[in-house]
């Protein structure tokens, strides 16, 4: 999971126009995407697509729709990275 977290952090550092309530390096798996990170729906979908591009995989969009926490994102990265 720590590799997935590093990948996510890199994506967030590179992403333009995505603003978070916490510093990228302070993101934790238990953080809620909306309540803790302050991500809006455009931001969440944007991150989903960046992950797809980064992993060079066609990931079904419904996989990202149910994301609630950072851990949900990391689980997706782990699933498709391997």
């Amino acid at each position, binding site marked *: 999971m720590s590799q997935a977290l590093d990948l996510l952090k890199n994506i967030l550092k590179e992403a*333009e126009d995505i603003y978070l309530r916490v510093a990228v390096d302070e993101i934790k798996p238990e953080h809620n995407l*909306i309540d803790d990170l302050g991500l*809006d729906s*455009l*931001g969440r*979908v*944007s991150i989903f697509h960046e992950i797809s591009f980064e992993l060079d995989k066609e990931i079904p*969009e419904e996989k990202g729709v149910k994301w609630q926490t950072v851990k949900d994102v990391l689980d997706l990265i782990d699933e498709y990275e391997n």
Partner: protein
Amino acid sequence: MKTKLALIDINKNEVSRIPKSIITAVKSSGHQVIHIENINELMKGLKDVDYIVGYSIPYTYIKRNKNLKEVFLLSSQVPESFLNKDFKVESIKGLNAKTVANYAFKWIEELTLPNFKIGVIGLGSIGKEVVTLCSDKKLNVMSISRNSEADYRYDQYTEFLNQVDIICICTTLNQETKELFTKERFFYHLKKDCRIINIARGELFHETDLVSFLSESKKAVYYTDVTYPEPYPEDGALRKLSNIKITPHIAGFSDEVWAAVEKKLTEALSQWGE
């Protein structure tokens, strides 16, 4: 071959949603129009279009589109990420400055008291209008900006913040301006009963710092037409406070503004693809 144009129409807010007249103008422009009404259609819809009309979106959605020639934003602020790229960017900058400024000025009039000092942060088209409105009413107003016309420069920021009773934030959002509104640079230097008006962007503030300041300084007030995210959730932390007012990003919209936007857009549409 027809050029491809994407119309991003995902904003369903009553006041700020794109009027039917503009949708009609786009669809009858002679371009092949992809009408995007859902966030999930964005990535596919924007993939290889030549032109885009709509509110701004994260750069991720367009950064892999090598065909893109121009973006017409239905907002006055252009995201920093859209600058210095291979496509042109047009916006409605200036068209709604008076409307937004008037909106902010109503709040200033509501909150001001005799001998109050009003500070305007940012002296672009909206900031200048706010200063003019205040001056016309003989209010004691001062401005701070990189603009040489401002009363204060940013190296005098603390001195500026220390003395103002009402702050009206009119800056654009970029990495530089975001740093102006941290706890250390902003909240520490405010009067405890400062009235803060935000007509710029919700992302300028770290919400935790803002909530902390307003919770500790019960006489301070925060009036904002912008939040992050938008729409602001019903159970958002700001809504639990009694010294705030939130309106849903409506300051810049009126029938007159939309008519001016439609005129500018129609000109652009006729030139695209030439």
